[in-house]
């Protein structure tokens, strides 16, 4: 997973592998997932895979990150606050949009994010 995340910085910013991997490890540490650093895809659960994808997306040059139907991406996810707290821990400087269907509206109750219908 570490190589997977570091790849973005290595390619787009030409960061040396060690530095890129240190940055990736730091991001994983912030969300208490440092233990999956050396895991392969089949060794991770859906939540861990989602977090890695999110970190990777945050490392790109794009100003906006769009998460589409997170309740389909993560197994047994009950409320959106889990994802919001991950985003907060990562100290994101980008706009994050979550797109979801109206049928999942109940999952967004009591969440701290703006909801636009």
């Amino acid at each position, binding site marked *: 997973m570490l190589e997977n995340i570091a*790849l973005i910085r290595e*390619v*787009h910013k030409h960061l040396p*592998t060690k530095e890129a991997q240190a940055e990736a490890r730091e991001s994983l540490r912030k969300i208490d997932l440092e233990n999956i650093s050396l895991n392969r895809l089949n060794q991770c659960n859906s939540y861990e895979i989602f977090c890695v994808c999110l970190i*990777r997306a945050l490392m790109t040059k794009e100003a906006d990150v769009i998460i589409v139907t997170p309740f389909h991406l993560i197994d047994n996810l009950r409320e959106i606050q889990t994802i919001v707290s991950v985003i907060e821990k990562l100290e994101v400087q980008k706009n994050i949009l979550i797109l979801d269907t109206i049928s999942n509206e109940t999952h967004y109750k009591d969440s701290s994010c703006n909801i636009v219908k």
Partner: protein
Amino acid sequence: MVLRFVEGIGDKTITTISSFYEALKFTFICLIHMHNPASYNPAMRMVLTKQIYFTTVQIIPLFSIMAVLFGSVIIGVVIVLATQYSLQDQIGSIIITFVIDEFSPFFTALLISLRSGTAVNTEIAVMNVNKELNTLREYNIDLIDYLFLPRIISGMISVVSLSILFAFIMLSSGYLFTLFYMNMDFHTYKHLLISAIEINDLVVMLVKSMAFGFVTMLIPIYSGLKATSAYTAIPISVLNGMVKLFIALFFIEVLSLLFQSL
């Protein structure tokens, strides 16, 4: 009936020419990337290092054993034949031409094709079917720089270096045969080879090995990219890739023979 037959030929010709053109375009793009310093980013260099290890270093023990076995037997056969046809004074140049110009690069390319060519073809086809290549594209990661170029360069490095190693081991083990069969001492054998070897032989070996290494990786990669989005397409892609690769290897071999005969 005749019209359909003619249409069929036309259709086949157009398909063949367009796929040949596509393959040439892909080769050209890869060559451009190969000569662009910006392609060599840290991620690419890391993949390149790993690929060199997988393609070149891992195979050395098996390769050395095969070189010793083939070396002593084949050089033995060449010497026996040369003696039979009273060509003893030409033994040095026969061995050098056979080992350095022909056998080492071709045998190395065959071995790397069977071992790494198939692996690369399968790997790219699986990544293609699993849409992993699309994910990389989405993240603006250049597939040629990150995936293809390290494999192509490692293929070239691998075939060139292993050809040199193969030729060296083969010539060394050939000495064993000359020692027992012709009672030739090491100094005479060494002198025989050194006086027969020319710069031309080394150039032929290097150029041929580089060409072999290039196609050994390029064709499987291209074939893997052509796999459609079904798992059943993977073995078909590997099969097609290997057939095309072997045709390309024989084509290069024939071309080099033609150039040398000029």
